[in-house]
């Protein structure tokens, strides 16, 4: 007598056989595995923003979910995009074709993520853009499969620029990284400054990875602006702030960091970074839940998680919950499920994914503590205000064809 179980096994075997005959082993993998891909900068400038820490966060999320979903094994694939869009896109394509990839998590670098979003649309695979800042990912470059998860240039500008203008920093001069991300960030901040009654006095476009920022800083000082807007990131941000301190520019101008991760503050030290305003989607020391997560993370990585690490954890959990709810890894069903379910975990409370792909959640405007205020290791930020998701990410712009105004 044929039992239900043997019937199931037979069907499964048959499917596998057909899949094998069809050629790509991908289908086989997809049938009994959930494959999470992570393409990020593992060796360059941004490797400490997510990188290995983010992979640990994915592992933690899988473990917390129970290790399997729908009885299927969960596999992680990782690749270093070396900050080159072509490498990121071709790795994504390769995994989609040959490794049965079911979801992709994208790390740092807006340029690479825009290239990967195009592959996500072509291969119809859910794509969580976690590390990039460029808000074009949910505007001009939006796709039905993209979720922009942690932060974007709009939210950063709304948080930091609004706070500073309201505190009296009315006139701005920008030090802008001369590429897509820097200009998007500067434009977003300029709009916010003007909308709040401030003035933009000018900007200097600095080539990426400049070895010395003092010339640019003296130009900023010469403008007579009250606020030095740093529309750059990573090492460029750290080196420009360091030089601003050395030249005494921070005594006459208030520096505004438009994108900072906690590892940057750790590198610079509080003596240099104190007083800085910044906006972040996550901080390890916000509440008991974030502290519990961070304690486990710290045990493995010997550093506190960045907002991207927190985002990787949350995105992995969100995806696995959707797979469980839908009962399969079918991309379209999962996207529908993702866009109708609230996200509640240690990273986001009541977060939701909008039609244009933005994951709307609260953002935090922080100020870096002085060395005297800091009581224990990594005690770097104080929360100035919590920005509601809608205020942070702003209304739907209409630039994304999936989400009319």
């Amino acid at each position, binding site marked *: 007598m044929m039992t239900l179980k043997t019937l199931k096994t037979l069907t499964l075997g048959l499917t596998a056989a057909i899949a094998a005959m069809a050629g790509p082993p991908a289908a086989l993998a997809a049938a009994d595995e959930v494959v999470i891909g992570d393409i990020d900068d593992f*060796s*360059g*400038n*941004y*490797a*400490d923003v997510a*990188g290995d820490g983010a992979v640990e966060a994915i592992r933690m999320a899988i473990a917390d979910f129970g290790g399997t979903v729908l009885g299927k094994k969960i596999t992680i694939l990782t690749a270093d995009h070396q900050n080159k869009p072509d490498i990121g896109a071709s790795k994504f394509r390769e995994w989609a074709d040959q490794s049965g990839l079911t979801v992709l998590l994208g790390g740092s670098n807006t340029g690479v993520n825009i290239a990967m979003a195009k592959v996500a649309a072509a291969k119809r695979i859910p794509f969580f853009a976690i590390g990039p800042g460029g808000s074009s990912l949910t505007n001009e470059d939006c796709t039905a499969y993209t979720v922009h998860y942690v932060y974007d240039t709009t939210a950063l500008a709304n948080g930091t620029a609004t706070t500073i203008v309201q505190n009296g920093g009315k006139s701005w001069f920008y030090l802008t990284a*001369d590429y897509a991300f820097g200009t998007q960030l500067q434009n977003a901040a300029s709009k916010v400054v003007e909308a709040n009654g401030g003035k933009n006095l000018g900007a*200097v*476009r*600095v*080539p990426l*990875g*400049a*070895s*010395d920022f*003092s*010339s*640019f800083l*003296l*130009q900023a000082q*010469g403008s007579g602006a009250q606020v030095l807007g740093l529309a750059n990131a990573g*090492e460029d941000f*750290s*080196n420009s702030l*360091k*030089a601003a301190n*050395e*030249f*005494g520019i921070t005594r006459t101008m208030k520096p505004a960091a438009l994108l900072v991760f906690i*590892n*940057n503050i*750790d*590198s*610079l*030290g509080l003596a*240099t970074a104190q007083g800085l305003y910044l906006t972040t989607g996550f901080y390890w020391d916000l509440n008991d839940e974030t502290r519990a997560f961070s304690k486990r993370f710290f045990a493995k990585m010997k550093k506190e998680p960045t907002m991207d690490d927190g985002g990787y954890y949350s995105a992995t959990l969100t995806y696995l919950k959707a797979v469980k709810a839908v009962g399969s890894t079918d991309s379209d069903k999962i996207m529908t499920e993702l866009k109708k379910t609230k996200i509640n975990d240690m990273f986001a409370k009541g977060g939701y994914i909008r039609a244009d792909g933005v994951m709307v959640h609260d953002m935090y405007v922080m100020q870096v503590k002085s060395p005297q205020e800091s009581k224990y290791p990594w005690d770097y930020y104080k929360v100035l205000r919590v920005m509601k998701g809608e205020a942070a990410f702003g209304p739907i712009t209409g630039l994304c064809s999936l989400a009319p105004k």
Partner: protein
Amino acid sequence: MTEIFGIPVAVILGQLMLGLVNGSFYAILSLGLAVIFGLMGIVNFAHGAFYALGAFAALLGLQHLGVNYWAALLLSPLLIGALGIVIERLFLRHIYQLEPLYGLLLTFGIALVIEGCLHQYFGASGQSYPVPAALRGVLNLGFMILPLYRAWVILVSLIVCLSVWFIIERTRLGGTLRAATENAPLLQAFGVNVPLLVAVTYGGGVALAALAGVLSAPVILVSPQMGSSLVIVVFAVVVIGGMGSILGAIVSGLALGVIEGFTKVIYPEASNIVVFLIMALVLIVRPAGLFGRE
């Protein structure tokens, strides 16, 4: 305020000073490269990595052994220079009879290994090295506020560059070194230990890179990739000065620092290519470089 071409004189003087500071780093780094190329014929692509190693040696010394800045200024170049000698004995000496391309590839490989190791152990974020207490103030030059430390960099650089130029061009040791490049077998016949001389020369060039690393540690973040972008510019500086020309490396290092500084005011977007533009022009007009022998 007086203006030249619409730019206030104070701004011009300020950028001139900053250009000299950056030029000082270029000069020390390109000097090391020029010594290594001029006396050994090796295009040392690992120079940027040794620069980073010099800075890391100072940082680790301070964090773990309590070695202060002043001691690091001496110890770090000695230590990294010794490492250079080991690398020369183990690897470089086997390729002298081959085309220069092999030296370039080998040193490029060494650079990748060093930077990869630093990356593995220290991560990409970089760390801060404090400005030594004695150099923490600022100088008010009237037209600008110059941090004391930057003035110190110019001073050290000038002393080091002139000393190296003097040793190589004006002393007996320098004469022997130059003789080794002209005719090594003959010099060996006179009883001079040429392999040792060559190894020490490489160590000396590497030590100069490490010294530049220690000097820059308080100014920029100490990170594994700190040398990789700088080394390309420094190569252009050496080509402009004339491959292997000591004086050429020093003069063009300082001059290009200043030119780059002015570009940052006039058209900032071009500041990272102006050096290469000049290199292209020099190669067209004087292929051997400004101070090179045709």
